[in-house]
């Protein structure tokens, strides 16, 4: 908006006075006079900074309280190992929350698919490789089922996945007969199912393949969300679905792909969980969906969609792991760990709201 070039027809009478009016473009007062304001701005532009700072502070704090036990390479790699399954689920959950949805069925899909893989490979004698393929496709199918209800029948994601959570849970109880598949049976018939339980040692740290898988999933999603058109569309849909629709994004197709991919990642987590837990238990990870939401929220991804980085969910999962480990090593009762996580969630959401109030 430089000097207005005199148009052929100069507007209305009342506009003639505009010539005399201030001509510079409305300038906003850009001094952020207080440090607090400046921090608020910085965080608004880099929403992942909050979980990173919290992670670093909690690492230092627990290092000071619990001492060397906590800071050992072994303990740190143990945290990575402990959060790996919930971390992968949190990656799937983040995708959905970025589109302003929520998925209560992630953990049910995960356990259901681990039961499918186990039943096929251990009891039906299907080669492990094929059992895993079936399980992964099953995950995609379960995700697409959620996506279909949400995009075609136009049900809210919360209600849809509340329903499918029960459906998948009932199915997995039926398929497993509410019985666990014992580790020995898996070892004897289908050891490949435990692939992600394998580990290697790096200077005192024991890295399991499930931790590696978690990192790989996050890096891949980070690439897809930030460097491809599909990722832009995911953010645009979460930001304002109607606007995304009008600006030419095929929103339903994108949403469907998000739910399908998220189901795939859940099934991948199901495979990894067999190695991590050592057996297949229908009762495991019953609260996994809530834990995944916790990680996402602590990671600074907005529940209202369209804002936040997927890496935040990784940091969120790690923060939960660090708190659990740190408090345990400091000799604090388990109930206070739960108590602390609860406060973390509330503080994370409060910070998110505060950051959003920034006026640029």
């Amino acid at each position, binding site marked *: 908006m430089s000097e*207005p070039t005199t148009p052929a*027809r100069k507007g209305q009478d009342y506009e003639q006075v*505009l010539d005399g009016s201030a001509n510079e473009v409305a300038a906003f007062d850009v001094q952020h006079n207080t440090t607090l304001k400046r921090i608020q701005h910085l965080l608004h532009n880099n929403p992942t900074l909050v979980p990173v700072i919290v992670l670093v502070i909690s690492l230092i704090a627990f290092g000071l309280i619990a001492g060397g036990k906590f800071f050992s390479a072994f303990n740190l790699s143990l945290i990575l190992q402990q959060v790996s399954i919930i971390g992968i689920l949190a990656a799937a959950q983040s995708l959905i929350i970025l589109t302003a949805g929520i998925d209560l069925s992630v953990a049910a899909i995960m356990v259901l698919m681990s039961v499918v893989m186990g039943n096929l490979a251990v009891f039906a004698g299907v080669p492990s490789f094929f059992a895993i393929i079936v399980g992964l496709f099953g995950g995609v199918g379960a995700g697409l089922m959620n996506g279909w209800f949400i995009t075609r029948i136009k049900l809210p994601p919360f209600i849809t996945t509340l329903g499918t959570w029960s459906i998948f849970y009932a199915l997995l109880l039926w398929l497993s007969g509410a019985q666990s598949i014992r580790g020995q049976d898996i070892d004897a018939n289908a050891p490949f199912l435990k692939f992600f339980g394998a580990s290697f040692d790096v200077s005192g740290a024991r890295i399991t393949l499930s931790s590696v898988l978690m990192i790989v999933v996050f890096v891949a999603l980070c*690439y897809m969300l930030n460097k*491809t*058109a599909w990722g*832009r569309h995911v*953010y645009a849909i979460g930001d304002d679905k109607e*606007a995304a629709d009008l600006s030419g994004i*095929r929103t339903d197709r994108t949403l469907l792909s998000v739910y399908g991919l998220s189901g795939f990642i859940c099934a991948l987590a199901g495979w990894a969980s067999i190695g991590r837990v050592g057996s297949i238990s229908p009762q495991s990870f019953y609260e996994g969906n809530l834990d995944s939401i916790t990680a996402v929220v602590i990671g600074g991804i907005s529940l209202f969609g369209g804002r936040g980085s997927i890496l935040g969910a990784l940091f969120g999962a790690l923060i939960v792991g660090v708190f659990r480990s740190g408090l345990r090593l400091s000799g604090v009762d388990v109930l206070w760990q739960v108590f602390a996580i609860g406060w973390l969630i509330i503080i994370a959401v409060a910070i998110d709201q505060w950051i959003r109030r920034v006026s640029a």
Partner: protein
Amino acid sequence: MDQKGVGIMEQPVVQARGIVKRYGHVTAIDHSDFELRKGEVLAVIGDNGAGKSSIVGAICGATIPDEGEILIEGKPVHFTSPIEARDMGIEIVYQNLALSPALSISDNMFTGREIRKEGWQGKYLRMLDNAAMEKFARDKLTELGLMTVQSIKQPVETLSGGQRQGVAVARAAAFATKFIIMDEPTAALGVKESRKVLELIQDVRARGIPIILISHNMPHVFEVADRIHIHRLGKRLCTIDPKDYTMSDAVAFMTGAKQPPEQDAG
């Protein structure tokens, strides 16, 4: 734009005849005609509920007519979605602008038609070419005299209302090859910002892209429009030349207080 007689001879950009759209018992479009000529700004005015949006929607795929034919540059079209119309070079500036607030200016200009990198990165990794998109966005905004925004990477939510409108118009102008539809572009703006948008409309017309302007603001309509399509009770009542009539005439036609002039087919 005074060659009234010549305009009829030339093939219109859009020609719609006998369009009908019913919603249950309500007839939103009742055998209406519509015509947009080359290089003109055509204002569409009408009372609330007259069916302005429906008739314009019919030529951009937002509403699918039950009857009638639509010719674009002489060829019949049957759009089933605005995306199809967009693929043909028809751009719409929506009243709510259809921008994603958290995405940057350049991201918003390219939503749904992103440019991928050349070579294997684009082909196999589907990597976006941000540099190319940012350059294009910057060029387009500069062409329209809109480069007051500090950075093309700025999220749209940090822009003022007028600047957002500018981004939406620039997006339409950058990709439109047939025509642009603008729905109430000045409704939410102040005096100065409205002026800027009116200048933008004239700029775009100067590039030879015709514009359909839906507006309630009579002074703005009379200032920029070459012809005014008056819509009443679901059909085109008449089209008038703003130089031959006053604003009160237009309002009188639109509300039924006065009979429209006798007209030939145009």
